[in-house]
């Protein structure tokens, strides 16, 4: 399986050449499927329109919710930093939805004393625009006194993607959880359940996630991976290794959760080598084991 640079997902569809180039004007290509102006009072309707188009284009509920959030954050920013209004256009081409939110800049933007432009569109950890970047497949932003244009790309799923499945095995004494297909709002719960039950029963507080057959994720999938990592890391000598994960996914995880140390390996076998002998990871009898069980609960709730 190849992972072309710039392609967010694999095995993804071959995206048409057009989207790699900046086409803010959108001229000369097919018309947008949605072209709507908005202001502060029409954001609710804008979200509904985006949801409808996303589902019509083939995005499942979870990924649709991601697009709705992204467009909302961009539109709310445009309203705040523009003159109270903006414009949304969505193109459906080349196996992806390209969404462009633009505004004309703040009212009276000719005033040089007024700090506008890039500062208003900083990507600060935990804020709206930061979340937009974590959730979108691609983000491109151009801003200046005359206004801002933000473009996000959401890849569309190709038909016949693998159905979700999570399976367990043991490798060199380590539990291996293999995830096949899409890890999204619908399947994240099952994945999280599997991680928790493994944590409760495994002999060692480590986990190898085999993601080589993971084809698709949305924000729920991303969050589930981050949460799984945090839960395993909270246990004494706990360590999770991501095996066979695509480059863009690793990048996304590291950016989304910079405080967490994501350890990666190309294959489960190499992951096992990274962890070392399982025997050395076994909890000390009488102390660690008890702590490990409590720690599994601690991530969820204190024991009552």
């Amino acid at each position, binding site marked *: 399986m190849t992972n072309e640079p710039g392609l967010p997902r694999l095995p993804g569809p071959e995206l048409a050449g057009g989207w790699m180039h900046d086409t803010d004007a959108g001229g000369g290509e097919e018309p947008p499927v949605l072209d709507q102006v908005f202001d502060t009072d029409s954001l609710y309707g804008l979200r509904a329109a985006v949801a409808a188009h996303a589902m019509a284009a083939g995005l499942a509920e*979870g990924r649709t919710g991601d697009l709705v959030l992204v467009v909302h954050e961009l539109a*709310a920013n445009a309203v705040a930093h523009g003159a109270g209004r903006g414009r949304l256009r969505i193109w459906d081409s080349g196996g992806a939805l390209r969404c462009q939110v633009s505004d004309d800049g703040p009212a009276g933007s000719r005033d040089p004393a007024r700090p506008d432009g890039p500062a208003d569109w900083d990507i600060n950890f935990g*804020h709206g625009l930061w*979340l937009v970047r974590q959730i979108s497949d691609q983000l491109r932003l151009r801003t200046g006194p005359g206004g801002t244009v933000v473009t996000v790309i959401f890849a569309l799923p190709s038909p016949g993607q693998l159905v979700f499945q999570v399976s367990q095995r043991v490798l060199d004494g380590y539990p291996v959880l293999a995830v096949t297909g899409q890890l999204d709002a619908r399947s994240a719960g099952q994945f999280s359940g599997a991680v928790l039950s493994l944590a409760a029963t495994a002999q060692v507080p480590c986990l190898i996630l085999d993601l080589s057959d993971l084809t698709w994720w949305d*924000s729920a999938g*991303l*969050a589930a991976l981050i949460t799984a990592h945090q839960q395993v890391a909270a246990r004494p000598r706990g360590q999770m290794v991501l095996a066979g994960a695509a480059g863009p996914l690793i990048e996304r995880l590291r950016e989304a959760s910079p405080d967490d140390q994501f350890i990666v390996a190309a294959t489960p076998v190499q992951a096992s080598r990274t962890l070392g002998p399982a025997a050395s990871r076994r909890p000390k009898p009488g102390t660690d084991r008890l702590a490990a069980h409590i720690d599994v609960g601690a991530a969820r709730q204190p024991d009552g």
Partner: protein
Amino acid sequence: MAVGADAQVTELEADDHACLTFGDPEELFDLTAAFVRDGLAGGLQVVWLNEAGTGQAVAELERRGVAVAPALASGQMTAAGAEGRLLSGQAFAAESAVEWLCTQMTASQREGFPGLRVAVDMSWALRPVTGVEQLPDFEQGIAAAVAGSAAAVLCQYDRERFDPVTLAQVAPFHTRSVATATYYADAVLRICRQYAPPGIRLAGEIDRRAAEPLALALAEAIRLPGDITINMAGLAFIDAACARIILDAARGLGGSRLVVLQCHPQVAARFALLGGGKVTGLLVEGVDDE
């Protein structure tokens, strides 16, 4: 319609004749659960005449953390319909209904309970029941029976379905008025207090324009002791700004008590991505998609 309320449901005491108006079933069940919970905790006998049917009524109470099974078994609690108690064969007579209440009060004393709480869903009065015009007489009779007694009666009126004239007619017979404290309400969003379990409830879609009422609702919920539940089961959308307001409020408690987020998987993911996993004392309870 302006919602008047001079008391919180958690402030009701013996000899209160309270009028509760609610806007949707969630509010009714939440307020009733708090009323029942506090009554049982105080060793009182509790009767709830409701339209939901005993099975659903019990389920709604248990869903909100009020374990009523032991009380139902021992007779401390009764959950039943109005038929055979306030009504007889779909006919209503104020005198008989007041007599029923007095019988409950006497029996409760005889059985050794320190007090009695009765919650009555008045929705039976919206049906074609003969004698329903005696409703104000019934309320007058309740007021007389309850005054100076160890009983508290909570009359429950659906303000979306009862006409304003009827509500105005019955209001004066009550000593207290109760409703869910509401911080924001329009066609798209509702932010209100929740009483069972205590916290706040968000329904609809929320974004940064509701930041102020959200912050106020959180601040007031935090002022009360104990864990806080943020019920987002009915919330279809939350933006980054509002999610951060909730996370900041939880962070501010520093793990001294639990903040429970009840939400759908997609909303839970949003909180996780915004750093929720690192907030001590934050617990996410997934809600199934309907």
